């Protein structure tokens, strides 16, 4: 009974966040224009590249597959809210004191808020990106992969949350954390496979990247969606789950240490 009540608390937090976010759907739509701009530029870049190469596939990706890959990675990346901005403001303004005395787990509360916000943003981005993709490229070659996308993307967003929360919790010590998040995001863009699939990297770099948690954030979901026949979904999900557990534990440990050190400024 107690566990059920606890679960309901987080369901309600999620519903409230969803309602708050739904009030700004038009705002998201306007901001998502940037997604269309980026996709348009990549469309031009890769069209020229494929024409220059004169081959139907590059590193196993056809032009259409590669563009749908970028639709997924860009839609996911632009859907992630900044955890560092949120926690930094909470610590600086003293709001964190109110969060800490509530009968809810601090990390679980932020996770629920984060995933609710992501749900709206990713839906808006997917609709816009999908419309552009359908209009310019036509339907994806392996539609079945897109049926698995919500599952693998859910794990990808959860892993991104755990990684982001580990960084954001350093606000308990240093207050200014956005620079660290900025650098993390840049790693996600490059070695994380957001800007191009890992298969296009030099071989030595590919070996290194396969051992990093970043591949589970946007590369795994995008690859599943566009190249379903060449991925082993259970292995991918297992890899994502493993990294989620590892970084979940690290985030919990950082939180437990940080909360003891925290000096609240205001309130």
């Amino acid at each position, binding site marked *: 009974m107690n566990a059920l009540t606890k679960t309901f608390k987080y369901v309600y937090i999620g519903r409230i966040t969803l309602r708050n976010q739904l009030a700004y759907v038009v705002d998201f739509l*306007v901001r998502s*224009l*940037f997604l269309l*701009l*980026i996709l*348009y*530029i990549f469309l*031009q*870049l890769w*069209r*020229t*590249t494929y024409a*220059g*190469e004169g081959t139907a596939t*590059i590193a196993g990706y056809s032009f259409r597959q590669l563009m749908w890959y970028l639709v997924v990675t860009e839609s996911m990346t632009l859907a992630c809210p900044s955890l560092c901005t949120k926690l930094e403001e909470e610590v600086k303004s003293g709001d964190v004191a109110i969060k800490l005395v509530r009968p809810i787990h601090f990390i679980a509360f932020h996770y629920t808020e984060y995933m609710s916000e992501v749900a709206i943003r990713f839906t808006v981005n997917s609709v816009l990106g999908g419309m552009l993709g359908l209009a310019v490229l036509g339907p994806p070659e392996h539609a079945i992969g897109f049926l698995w996308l919500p599952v693998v993307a859910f794990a990808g967003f959860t892993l991104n949350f755990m990684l982001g929360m580990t960084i954001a919790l350093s606000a308990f010590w240093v207050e*200014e954390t956005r*620079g660290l998040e*900025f*650098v993390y995001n*840049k*790693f996600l*863009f*490059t070695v994380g496979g957001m*800007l*191009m699939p890992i298969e*296009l*990297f*030099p071989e030595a*770099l590919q070996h290194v990247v396969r051992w990093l948690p970043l591949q589970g954030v946007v590369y795994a979901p995008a690859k599943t969606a566009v190249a379903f026949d060449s991925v082993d979904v259970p292995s991918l999900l297992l890899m994502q789950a493993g990294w989620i557990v590892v970084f979940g534990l690290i985030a919990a440990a950082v939180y437990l240490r940080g909360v003891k050190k925290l000096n609240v400024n205001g309130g």
Partner: protein
Amino acid sequence: MSDYAMPGKSKRLLWFVWACWKSNLLGAMEFRLSFLLMAGTMLINDVVWIIFWGLYFRRFPVVNGWELQDVMMLWAVSAGGVGLMSTLFGNSSRIAGLVVSGQLDVYLSQPKPVLLHVLISRMSISAIGDVAFSLLVYGFYGDRSLIGLAKFGLALALATLIFIFFTVVVNCLAFWLGGTDGLSAQLFNALVTFTTYPTGIFRGAGKLLLFTVVPAGFISYLPIGLLRDADPLFMLGVVGVVGVLTVGGIWLFYTGLKRYTSGNMMGLRR
């Protein structure tokens, strides 16, 4: 006789600009760690794009005539131009917000040219990272001869002017349309984004857009049209665009200023 009609006004104006830049920098240096972090993270941001292009050109050495060195110089010119704009004329992208919130009053009450005063009264610290990045890339990939340096300096100056006055033009929409800061920011972002990709990848309507509505092509083609081989026709086009944007931007600002309505916000400039 007004202050500006007096002899030596240009010299005094230059001293005023210099004093503004100096005080902006001193203000930024007050929080040294924060200053270094912000400029450093911007530098890292730019380096990431260099990594992307490095990986790309390792796989595809030539794309429509563009090579790695051209794209590196494209980034040096683009990041340098936008960096110089945001460092020395940091209020360019905030004019729409200042107009809507009635914060131009403080500039109107002072005996200095309003547009110049608005532009130089803010410095973006993170943009210093862009300038540092630009110089580093030039050092590694640019032509370091005297002519090469002069060409790079000219490219930077032209790119900076296009960035400043395109931003002024789109921000001046606020005088007529009201709260356009979102739209102005989107147009500015579009210009910056387009300037960081080789013009060779665009065709048809996209290419036309780059040399008209969003004049990013006049910046992103500089590595080919000026730095690699000076193309007189292209350079004539760039100078023409800079002239039109500069004159148009100044004219739009002062025409719009006649429609400006003061706010009741108290402001202070020392």
